[in-house]
């Protein structure tokens, strides 16, 4: 049943204009970066900065819009013998999968026809993995918000605030903390703080992968020491997964008991 809902969901999404625009955005950007003479590794590094801002924003806004627009449709389907949990997964995967596919396709295609080296491919795949995780996480956050708040202005506004918080304000807070407590050894607390932000987690994972942590100075060295180890990698991937599981579960529970 989930697959049936998903099938029609995917057909609908893949025919919409915004998903095509989304693919083109990543495709053109990666292509242009290649043309500017970057090798695959450099392109991945530049793409990282864009992806870390664009993906959370696009995913959370599109996700919230999508679910608000599908409200009547959800009601209609729920009047058929469809179980709520089936419908939730159908709707969730129905948006998250196309977004991941659009992003992954758009980024990887230029790598294919530019015949990137193995190293560059590794970086690209890491990029796609992190980007996909962020997509799913922020779609999940959007779904939770859209299910929690019936008022779409409130839901969308909050989505925007959450996104800005994680992309900009959170880093500001970390900087502020570092500044205030500059006479204390702060590496460990900052390490812990960055686990609480999915975007920072993504950045750290990528930076270490691309071997440019030296750019971050002393902090980079500390991060390298921790996140570079198998334990650190496990912890960071685990926290990213936690970031995925918590909003999805919250949205799912909400969907099961919600009054439509």
């Amino acid at each position, binding site marked *: *049943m989930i697959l*049936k*809902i998903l099938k029609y969901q995917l057909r609908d*999404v893949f025919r919409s204009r915004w998903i095509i625009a989304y693919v083109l955005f990543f495709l053109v950007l990666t292509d242009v970066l290649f043309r500017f003479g970057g090798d695959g590794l450099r392109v991945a590094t530049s793409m990282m900065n864009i992806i870390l801002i664009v993906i959370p924003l696009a995913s959370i806004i599109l996700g919230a819009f999508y679910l608000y627009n599908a409200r009547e*449709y959800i*009601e209609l389907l*729920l009047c*058929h*013998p469809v179980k709520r949990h089936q419908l939730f997964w159908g709707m969730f995967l129905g948006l998250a999968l196309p977004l991941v596919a659009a992003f992954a396709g758009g980024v990887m295609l230029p790598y294919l026809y530019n015949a990137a080296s193995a190293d560059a491919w590794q970086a690209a795949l890491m990029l796609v993995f992190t980007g996909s995780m962020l997509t799913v996480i922020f779609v999940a956050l959007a779904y939770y918000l859209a299910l929690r708040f019936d008022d779409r202005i409130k839901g969308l506004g909050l989505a925007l605030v959450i996104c800005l918080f994680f992309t900009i304000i959170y880093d500001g807070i970390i900087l502020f903390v570092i500044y205030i407590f500059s006479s204390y050894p702060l590496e460990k607390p900052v390490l812990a703080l960055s686990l609480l932000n999915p975007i920072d987690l993504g950045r750290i994972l990528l930076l270490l992968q691309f071997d440019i942590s030296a750019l971050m100075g002393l902090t980079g060295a500390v991060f390298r020491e921790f996140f570079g180890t198998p334990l650190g990698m496990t912890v960071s991937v685990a926290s990213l997964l936690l970031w995925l599981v918590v909003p999805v579960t919250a949205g799912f529970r909400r969907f099961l008991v919600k*009054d439509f």
Partner: protein
Amino acid sequence: MICVNALNKKYGTLQALLSVDVEMESGRITAVLGPNGAGKTTLIKSILGLVKPDSGTITVDGILVNGESQYREMIGYMPQLARYPENLTVTEIVDMIRDIRKTASSRKPVQNDTPDMELWDRFGLDSEKDKPFRTLSGGNRQKVSAVLAFLFRPKVLFLDEPTTGLDPVSSSILKDKILAERDGGTTIILTSHIMSEVQELAEQVVYLLEGRIYFEQTVSELLEATGQTTLERAIAVKLGREPEMVTETGVAS
């Protein structure tokens, strides 16, 4: 047949339904009426399982509504405003609903397996079948939604403002179909703002006011008791207000 027993529902501090008891018999058209915010939608959505009531029980054809989805096999629903995925064509939407129904009913085959396409043919929807849903006019959307409601020969049918946006011809086709289904023993629940339509179709009126059942009567009883010839006037008199007042406050709607 639908039995609603001591149904309560609160939205925050707003009491949407207050110990509502209703029985809707099969082979009859019951109109649920009341001013805006009286709880009509909440009542219907509770029966459909979209809204979870705080207390009380609902049974549809003897099956308790408790969050299970299987009973909805018997139900056809025509919403006031139908919105299907915008980029799917009309044919795809019909196929999708049939697909969804197929698995659900595979456990116990229904006696009437062939879908009821009578309305599709009579509305002449063949000319629209390859258009994406987003390009359809309001009337055509309404037609699609009517076809889908009747498609599986439901035992229970919910019609929320069914004739809104329909031209007179389509509207009559739909009304004929509704009456034919009623004669076939279907339980039909109707809401409408057009009192002449209610008078034409419904046998029973359930009038909600502020979350309570204000009265529940057959149309003929209501007309007789109030000495009026139209349902609109009869309800106005029943509510004990001047007819002019009624239109102003929208009570008759």
